[in-house]
């Protein structure tokens, strides 16, 4: 049950951060127009970025762990 709660927390965090970033990149004050295509591309790009960041961070942790740094 804890694992499930953490998964929900992670999904919520992801949705909140993508919404903030893609709202910022795709919608401009006075916000009179929606821009769904931009939001879709932004989401795709955010997920790809998440993968790149994730790989880079885990590589760094493993490297530090192998060299006995942590």
């Amino acid at each position, binding site marked *: 049950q804890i694992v499930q709660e953490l998964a929900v927390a992670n*999904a919520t965090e992801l*949705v909140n951060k*993508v919404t903030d970033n*893609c709202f910022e990149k795709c919608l401009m*004050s*006075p*916000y*009179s127009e929606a821009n*769904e295509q931009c939001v879709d591309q932004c*989401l795709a790009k955010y997920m790809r970025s998440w993968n790149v960041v994730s790989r880079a961070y885990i590589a760094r942790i493993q490297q530090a762990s192998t060299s006995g740094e942590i």
Partner: protein
Amino acid sequence: KEIATFLEAENSKQKVQLSIHQFTNTCFKQCVTSVSNAELSSQEEQCLNNCVNRFLDTNIRIVKSLQSIQ
């Protein structure tokens, strides 16, 4: 059981309140540029309305896209 229902209702109300705080913070920054008087102009009020609605559109679209990927 009544206590559980009561707590759940309070919890939902609290989430709505927190969303209103967050939206007001985000949309005030973007829509209200001048505080040289205490009234909202009609453009500012329209911008605040649009801001909330476009933010929710973005949020809903992202949630649906992420659900369809799974």
